């Protein structure tokens, strides 16, 4: 009897043969561990003459942490094909479930490896070179001309003012829906964020939504691809910056965000490349917001696991470890701001 994966491989080969109009057989299929919003597979197809086609298949998860739209992901990758933001080459988005049982996206596989965001040694000895690229590419995303986004886009179009509130409302709603316990530290942060809003940037930019260590591929000292665009939206320029800076991604060396270059260097690179000046109070707000957003994601993961809908250990891990780290990050940030301490 065929396994699910063998069956998927056969169906995929048939689909891709139809797409390319040339016979292709599946040489190998391998699910990639990690990532909770999509099932991702590395597939090698074989041509008649022995040539190989290396592909990445991303399928909608039946149960994913956060509802993310496949069209948004596809569109975000489309916007950056052959630009100064390296992304995999897109091949096809299929909205129908009739071919593989679920909607999916196919991309070319690009060279490189993804690192664990919790491993401080991941990028050694190239942390400086990769660091410069990491913060420059983020600036390139921020600099993207959003007028190129079509009016019928699936990327959420939001108002210029109070976009902070729309983001905060969204993640607080996730927390209210998925919490399986009371989190007083998180509640304190939420109250603070609503009371002390950041300056409106009056500049909407494209926000990756999950730009961080671990969500890019690198080969030696070169970043080869930025991944995981499913939470892309329009928003504040500081949103991605704050998420990438978050201490959760550099817990053991907090002054070296993403375990790359030092924080001040990172901020300088980003400011130079975007031409924007960072307002410290606003950046503080977005960094605290990042903790709340993070906790919303980890709470959602715990909820998925607890309900039995998705017992992937990544969900249990997310609920246990990153949740605690972001709670501590809230205390660390608030300690610098609350006047009574």
């Amino acid at each position, binding site marked *: 009897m065929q396994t699910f994966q063998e069956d998927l491989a056969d169906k995929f080969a048939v689909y891709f043969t139809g797409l390319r109009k040339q016979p292709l057989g599946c040489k190998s299929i391998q699910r990639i561990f990690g990532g909770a919003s999509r099932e991702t597979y590395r597939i090698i197809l074989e041509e008649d003459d022995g040539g190989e086609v290396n592909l990445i298949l991303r399928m909608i998860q039946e149960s994913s942490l956060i509802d993310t739209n496949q069209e948004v992901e596809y569109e975000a990758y489309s916007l950056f094909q052959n630009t100064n933001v390296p992304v995999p080459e897109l091949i096809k988005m299929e909205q129908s479930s009739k071919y593989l049982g679920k909607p999916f996206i196919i991309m070319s596989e690009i060279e490189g490896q993804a690192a664990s965001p919790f491993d401080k040694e991941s990028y050694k000895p190239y942390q400086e070179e990769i660091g410069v690229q990491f913060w420059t590419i983020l600036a390139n995303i921020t600099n993207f001309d959003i007028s190129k986004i079509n009016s019928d886009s699936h990327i959420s179009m939001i108002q210029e003012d109070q976009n902070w509130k729309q983001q905060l409302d969204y993640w607080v709603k996730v927390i209210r829906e998925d919490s399986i316990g009371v989190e*007083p530290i998180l509640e304190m942060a939420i109250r603070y964020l609503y009371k002390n809003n950041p300056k409106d940037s009056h500049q909407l930019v494209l926000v990756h939504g999950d730009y961080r260590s671990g969500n890019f591929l690198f080969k030696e000292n070169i970043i080869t691809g930025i991944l995981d665009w499913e939470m892309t939206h329009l928003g504040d320029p500081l949103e991605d910056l704050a998420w990438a800076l978050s201490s959760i991604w550099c817990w053991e060396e907090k002054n070296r965000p993403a375990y790359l270059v030092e924080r001040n260097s990172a901020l300088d690179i980003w400011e130079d490349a975007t031409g924007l000046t960072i307002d410290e109070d606003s950046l503080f707000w977005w960094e605290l917001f990042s903790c709340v957003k993070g906790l919303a994601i980890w709470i959602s993961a715990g909820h998925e696991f607890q309900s039995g809908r998705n017992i992937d250990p990544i969900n249990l891990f997310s609920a246990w470890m990153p949740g605690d780290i972001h709670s501590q990050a809230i205390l660390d940030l608030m300690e610098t701001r609350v006047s009574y301490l």
Partner: protein
Amino acid sequence: MKPSIDQSLIVLAQELSERVAPLIDNEYELSRLKAWSALLLIASSINDDSADYLLTENKKIENLIEKYRIFLQENKFFKIYNLNLNKEDTSIKISSLKKINENLRTCFTAAHTLFEEEENIQALKDSWEVLSTMQMNQGVNRLVPLLQVNKD
């Protein structure tokens, strides 16, 4: 004396990563198994302290609310919140302590909000101590190195 649950979990984690993992060819299933092994190690390191942490946190919250009873009473706090909810079960099971803790955390969050609104500085300082205790018991700094050990 029997071997403890914690020790058993540690051995199970070791067995999974050292004896079962090498038998698995599929990279995805292997990663998944290793993740379970890491989670077992984490579970073993927090299991023994769980009841103590809950008892400590519950006591801290009760003491805080007792200290500011008059202030809270003036703000009609006790018309809505009941500190004694779920206390009919007097066992020291973790599940019972958690139920009490959930109610106390709800009370604490409401009281903390009130302290902020009324700018009661001393109460806010005391609340911060409670929050720090809650977080200290999560043992984040203790657990991160554990993950590093198990990353391979």
